[in-house]
């Protein structure tokens, strides 16, 4: 095979892997949108916050050390212990559930029946708040996240492809792990929403709030549940992205990358989020590979949006979204 084609295949494969990570974030969006009709801009910041908290727990950082030092003139930094990754992950999960309860009690409860744009704005406000909170709690410096996931080039694929094609593909182990985790996550979420009692309640709420209320489903509990799940998905996304590129502010920007994924797949479809992520991930890598050099590179910044825009003009509800029916 010609080299150019091999390089393109490699870029495409890497794009697919990156797409899986986009899908992970998009999944959190879809869950919340389905259950409460809220377009949750804070999903990316949730991932950042989860990753920061995880690193903080692992390294035994004292929360709010910077603030406490500034106010009381002390010099606190660390507890001086290192938690094992699994304990830190469980603790972070608990924090995310606590966060879901707080968000439900102090924000969402008061915004029932508001226009979607108001709710969207509220989540942007929450995103700002969480971003500031995360930085104050754990410090704004770039942190290294290591929960023991394998990293670096996958030797097996390298060798096998080298022997078969004469060119070794560079595939990161972490990306493979991320794909497996994403697949497991989607399967377990689907099973949860199809077969468990709470999952059915969740789908009922998504279908019709009032009808769900009238058959005795607690809306507030469902919202806490769904935000907890979104927090958990954010934690997984935070771990994957954090291991890949360090825990830093730019982590919250992946939320913006997840938006075109959502548009492509449709706001209400879990498979749509996955397929959309794969298309966007592969599309932007291939576009950068073939067209990028001609027009100056760094096309990844906008390609996803342009692609989604093009798609929407022909299919306004996205690939898998429910058909939009408008009545007067």
């Amino acid at each position, binding site marked *: 095979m010609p080299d150019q084609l091999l390089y393109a295949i490699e870029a495409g494969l890497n794009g697919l892997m990156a797409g899986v990570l986009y899908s992970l974030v998009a999944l959190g969006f879809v869950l919340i949108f389905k259950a409460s009709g809220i377009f949750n801009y804070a999903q990316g910041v949730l991932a950042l916050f989860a990753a920061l908290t995880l690193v903080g727990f692992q390294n035994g950082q004292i929360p709010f050390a910077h603030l406490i030092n500034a106010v009381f003139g002390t010099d606190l930094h660390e507890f001086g212990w290192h938690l094992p990754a699994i304990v830190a992950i469980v603790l972070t999960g608990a924090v995310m559930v606590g966060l879901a309860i707080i968000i439900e009690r102090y924000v969402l409860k008061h*915004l029932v029946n508001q226009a979607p744009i*108001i709710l969207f704005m509220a989540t*942007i406000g*929450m995103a700002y*708040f969480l971003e500031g909170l995360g930085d104050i709690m754990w410090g704004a410096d770039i942190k290294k996240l290591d929960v023991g996931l394998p990293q670096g080039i996958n030797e097996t694929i390298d060798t096998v492809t080298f022997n078969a094609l004469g060119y070794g593909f560079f595939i990161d182990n972490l990306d493979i792990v991320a794909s497996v985790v994403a697949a497991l996550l989607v399967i377990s979420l689907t099973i949860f929403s199809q077969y468990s009692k709470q999952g059915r309640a969740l789908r009922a709420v998504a279908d019709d709030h009032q009808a769900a209320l009238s058959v005795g489903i607690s809306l507030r509990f469902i919202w806490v549940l769904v935000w907890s799940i979104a927090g958990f998905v954010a934690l997984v996304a935070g771990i994957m992205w954090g291991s890949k590129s360090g825990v830093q502010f730019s982590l919250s920007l992946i939320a913006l990358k997840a938006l075109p994924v959502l548009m492509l797949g449709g*706001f209400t479809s879990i498979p749509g989020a996955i397929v959309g992520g794969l298309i966007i991930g592969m599309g932007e890598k291939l576009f950068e590979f073939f067209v990028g050099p001609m027009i100056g590179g760094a096309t990844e910044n906008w390609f996803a949006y342009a692609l989604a825009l093009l798609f929407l003009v022909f299919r306004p509800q996205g690939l898998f979204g429910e058909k939009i029916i408008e009545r007067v």
Partner: protein
Amino acid sequence: MFYREAGDFKTSYADDSQTFPIRFDRLRYYAVIAVAFGVIPFFINDYWANAVFVPFLIYAIAALGLNILTGYCGQVSLGTGGFMAVGAYAVYKLMTAFPEVSILIHVLLAGGITAVVGVLFGLPSLRIKGFYLAVATLAAQFFLVWLFNKVPWFYNYSASGQISAPERTVLGHAVTGASTTAPAKYLFCLIILFALAWLARNLTRGTVGRKWMAIRDMDIAAEIIGVNPLTTKLSAFAISSFYIGVAGALFFSVYLGAVEVGEAFGIQKSFLILFMIIIGGLGSIFGSFAGAAFLVLLPVLLKNILVGHLGWATDLAAHVELMIVGALIVIFLIAEPHGMAQLWRLAKEKLRLWPFPH
């Protein structure tokens, strides 16, 4: 006691449909104009101009523009930063290409160019609605910023990739460049804002504005009663982009002087201006001003308190500021989803009966 219509008799149709039908309100409006034009220019110094007044005036123009699109016509846009960048780069290219033409004309032309770009990115709004459209406008935001970064023609092949405004004068006073004075900058922005706000107020209560509001409230119903969605939506995009382009041109040439596109016109700017109109009040001219004033003053105030008085490190203060802004937005949305404009309306109702409310 205040804002009473008693004794204020209307004898003509024009009287009845004026912007400020209550005499007290009208006088207050004239008083504000008089102070803005006649008093502040004599007392303004560089700190106040650069930290408070000039950014407030420019953001108010941008907020007016976005409010026309989002508040009046109901099309949510997250591309404001990108459109401001179009205005900035258009005015830069015009200033350097035609140095003998007045800066005022350049600023208005830059607005016009932005309007064309705005219409282009507004075209999908005919197919896409709601959040899908909001995300689609992000395409404009990221594409435009990328474009101005990558194509050297836009920044005249300068080595740093930055654009910086050369000196231009209006009536002999420098308004851009290094040797500007605070009153000149302030008055230049104020005059443009005054004209644009007057225009916006009169557009929104006329035929055009009513069409926008019909589309906002229910587009299908509006279409059935004869409002053309194509011209209505695109005119909202054009006029809104004109305002935002003018704001971007002023932001670059008068306020900052030199900009790097990703920093000055990034996605954060889009959100900032969206916050202004949400906090100020969607679909309200006064709300655009109030929101802009609030979000310009708040960081200055917080910085003065946290860094100046408490002596905290600047990065810590910046994080606390983020939290406070975020919390305030949420609190505002919970307490008064219609923004400061609604609070002002309620205050007027209260003042009318004050001090004997029963």
